[in-house]
């Protein structure tokens, strides 16, 4: 299996706990014979390869001046698309799926799905509704609408707790069978992730 993981943070860039999580996940996947490519943002560190064999592609934003996180994210996405397309063509168009962490790179995942038929998993760390509780400015609603697009277009949704699964279903009206709980503290963590991936792999080809 060959996959691409999208995450806006990966060591040495650490914004929150997602960074270390994605590193642990990708090395565990590599240990289980998954070819892992991570596409992430970093304006100072170049692309590299981990000792585990995981390929890290770091893109930066071609537009340096911004008026908010939204414009920054939306101009970064075409670079994520470029990096992912390069991996795709180099691998003879054989990418089984993309695993996207949070909303930042949802636009790229959605385009790649519609353009190249690569299915994606939307892995939820946090939701705009919780980060900006009861704040309904157009800015927050725009982020929420990108999350909504991700939930709609994803083949599967991965969450870390039953509570988060309930929240995703409650706020975004996601069909229950689409959201899967996989706890990172569970002993069967990687096994369950691999099981989820195998369900998604070929998901678009069946249709």
């Amino acid at each position, binding site marked *: 299996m060959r996959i691409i993981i999208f995450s806006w943070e990966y060591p040495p860039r650490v914004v929150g706990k997602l960074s270390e999580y994605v590193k642990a996940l990708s090395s565990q996947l590599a240990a289980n014979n998954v070819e892992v490519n991570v596409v992430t943002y970093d304006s100072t560190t170049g692309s590299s390869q981990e000792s585990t064999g995981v390929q890290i592609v770091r893109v930066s934003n*071609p*537009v*340096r*001046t*911004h*008026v*908010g996180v*939204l*414009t920054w994210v*939306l*101009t970064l*996405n*075409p670079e994520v*698309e*470029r990096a992912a*397309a*390069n991996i795709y*063509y180099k691998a003879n168009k054989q990418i089984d799926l993309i695993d996207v962490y949070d909303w930042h790179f949802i*636009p*790229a995942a*959605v*385009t*790649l799905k*519609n*353009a*190249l*038929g690569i299915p994606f998993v939307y892995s939820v760390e946090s939701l705009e509704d919780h980060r900006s509780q009861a704040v309904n*400015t*157009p*800015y927050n*609603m*725009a982020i929420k*609408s*990108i999350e909504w*697009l991700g939930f709609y277009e994803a083949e599967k949704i991965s969450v870390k707790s039953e509570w988060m699964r309930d929240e995703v279903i409650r706020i975004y009206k996601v069909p229950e069978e689409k959201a899967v709980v996989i706890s990172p503290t569970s002993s069967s963590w990687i096994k369950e992730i691999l099981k989820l991936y195998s369900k998604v792999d070929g998901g678009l080809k069946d249709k």
Partner: protein
Amino acid sequence: MKDDLVVMMLSWEFPPRVIGGISPHVYFLSKNLAKQGVKVYVVTCDFPGAPSHEVIDGVEVYRIDSYKNPAPDFATWVYLMNLNMQKETAALTRKIENKIDVFHAHDWLVANAGIGLKHVFRKPLLVTMHSTEIGRRDGLHTSTERMIHETEAWLNYEAWRVICCSEYMVSHVKWAFGLPNDKLVMVPNGVNTLCYNDIDCDLKDARSKFALPEEKIVLFVGRLVYEKGIHVLVNAAPKILEKVNAKFIIVGSGYMKEQLLNIVRSMRLEHKVLFEGFLDEQTLLKLQKCADVSVCPHFLNRSESSH
């Protein structure tokens, strides 16, 4: 020309959505390419009453939902609209089995969509630069203006070729983004003279609606915005009137309208300078035909017959 050439055109405006000059430009370009045997797809923003898909003069027009996401400001709206435009264009391109030869983007308003599509499908990207932020604002003064300028620079960097509609715009774009000569192509806008052929029956009648028989008609057609230079013409009116008995007809609308009206009032020339707003096509053609002089004081693309 290779007769099975397929072009995927990206434009934020296409008739009936008309905001500025890009809309008629893309319409006539697409229509005439189709006439030459080129298969043209246009992906553009929606407009009330216009269908999401239709064939106009042999051109396949797809209109996307451009207000799908709430947006805090105009620039963010543009980028969010690009997200949807890119997604729809990606699905359309996949549906026609990637059988396209080139993506053609018009201005920064479709930059994100065009750049991403170029890389995802590995097809060449052509760009037409109709104007620039640094030219429109006469410099870069705010973060938004700088951001738009950098987006334009990125688009010009990613483009295989950059088309401009005048020699002036070629040199301006070269200066603004540091492009090499061989990347720029000058293709002037065409002027369709055929549509004036049928208009001769009641010209006198049409003329009398705007001017007295002894008045010369000075015509301006364009948005009432800074870069169109309309304030230069309005301010020159008293000097012109010293020598010629003229009527100034201003067609179009824009944010400078009130300001221009105030200038005209302060000069007490309300009876000589008329603001007509938008006119229907027939009236405009008649007016263009009976005008004595048509003025284009545009600061940027002086040869563009933009509206």
